[in-house]
């Protein structure tokens, strides 16, 4: 960390000329590959009756359900995932590598399988679910809570991985400095570590939210598909595909635009400024 007074930047910056084409061409191809399908949706959308379709109560219900469950799921992921990331990044315990590998399992297994797995554990006859049912009369499948759990299952790895990366990248000497000032481990974590890795947590939460919002397979398997309680936007899109592809395009665009708006706002606030 040099503390020389900041000189005016641009004049001193090395002139590197145009970016090299071996990087630019693949980058442009990458952008095109990601953007063109979206463009396809936009071009083929039935714009004329868009307004009417978007404000249909079923669409609004699905949209609201998607946004609220994804947000609750992200909050749950933060509560559980940040401490988990801390344990993985900052402590040594037997089987830590195994735990880290297990945490990433939801990334590689098909979400539908994840949904079945959730049924086997939390379903009415599941390993834990049967006791929830017998003792408390709680059944989770086919409820909005099941939607949230399915989303947490598939989205949490994104949060854990990015927060763990941020923790590993953070300068641990600041934590030592806090310790020499009398801060216990919890204080160090809340007052020093967390603020340091906030950008990483923000980025992880955004990824997590986006993944939860797009979640389909685990949701339809574990939570089922019922308008208003468990039919999120991706499920509504899938059902619309069976009957009326145009409606599916409309729903996809709505989901796309709303999530883009939210992500752009959050990214601005969390990632860039922190």
């Amino acid at each position, binding site marked *: 960390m040099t503390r020389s007074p900041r000189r005016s930047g641009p004049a001193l910056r090395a002139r590197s000329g145009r970016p090299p084409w071996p990087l630019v061409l693949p980058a442009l191809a990458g952008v095109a590959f990601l953007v063109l*399908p979206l463009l*396809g*949706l936009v071009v*083929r*959308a*039935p714009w004329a009756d868009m307004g009417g379709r978007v404000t249909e109560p079923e669409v609004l219900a699905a949209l609201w359900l998607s946004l609220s469950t994804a947000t609750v799921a992200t909050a749950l992921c933060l509560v559980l995932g940040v401490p988990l990331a801390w344990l993985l990044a900052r402590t040594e315990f037997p089987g830590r590598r195994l735990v880290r590998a297990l945490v990433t399992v939801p990334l590689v297994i098909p979400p539908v399988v994840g949904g*079945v797995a959730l*049924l*086997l554990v939390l*379903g*009415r*006859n599941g390993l834990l679910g049967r006791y929830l049912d017998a003792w408390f009369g709680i*059944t989770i*499948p*086919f409820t909005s809570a099941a939607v949230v759990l399915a989303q947490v299952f598939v989205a949490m790895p994104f949060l854990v991985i990015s927060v763990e990366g941020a923790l590993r990248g953070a300068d641990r000497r600041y934590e030592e400095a806090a310790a020499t000032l009398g801060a216990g481990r919890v204080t160090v974590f809340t007052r020093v570590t967390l603020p340091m890795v906030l950008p990483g947590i923000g980025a992880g939460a955004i990824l997590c939210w986006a993944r939860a919002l797009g979640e389909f397979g685990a949701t*339809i*398997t574990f*939570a*089922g*598909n*019922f*308008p208003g309680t*468990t*039919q999120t936007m991706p499920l509504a899109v*899938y*059902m*619309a*595909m*069976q*009957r*009326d*592809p*145009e409606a*599916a*395009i409309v729903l996809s665009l709505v989901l796309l635009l709303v999530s883009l708006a939210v992500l752009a706002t959050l990214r601005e606030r969390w990632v860039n400024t922190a």
Partner: protein
Amino acid sequence: MRDAPSRLIPALAAAALALTACSAPDAGPGTAGETGSEGPTGELTVFAAASLTDVFEDLAREFEAANPGVEVVFNFAGSSELAAQINSGAPADVFAAANTSTMDQVVEGEGLAPEWAGEHGANGAVFATNTLRIAVPADNPAGIEDLGDLAGEDTAVAFCAEEVPCGAATVTALDAAGLDITPVTYEEDVRAVLTKVELGEVDAGLVYETDVIAAGEAVTGIAFPEADEAVNDYPIALLANAPAPDPAEAWIDFVLSGTGAEALAGAGFGTP
């Protein structure tokens, strides 16, 4: 339904499928005759409703044994998905649908082979029927006996979504019974309903007879009279742009033959 927007999304799926289909070595009808046998030869692509998976695979083994030059390649999926893929140009020879409406989509879209259709029917040939059954877990925890029991307050029921054939049949059956039942979930296909029943997550679901049989011990099927109002016809047809029409026609004949009917009956299908 042949307007462009409706074909946009299936196009991607069809493209992916075309890639896999085209990667097979050239074994089209052009190479026929080299083995010297008299029957048809080549690779035959059959798009079939998911509910036909087991019985069609069994039949294909017999068919291939009888026709050494032919290899049958299947694409099993929901009928409406398959129809969309075919209408997007997927290279299929035969379409076997789980209901007539999806076959109608293909008739209007990609079209059937005219000569074949003239002989067997403009909307394909019905080769099997499937009847709805109430599926309950083996121990039948809610004590379901007929369709009316599904309306019980504490009874958790899974139906197919209206958008898929079994859902449409469900609506017809319920209308016939004059019942208005709200399930806990509208599943995306009949297998998903069956899974929920098998796991005991719901007390009952409406599925096809064939699914009950396929599920074995885990599920008990209960027949109900209103099911007769909602019998599903399974049509099969030779497609207009079939790359291998000869083996395709032979396959269809085989499915419609006594051997085919026997196998279908064994799997729980009815005869038309």
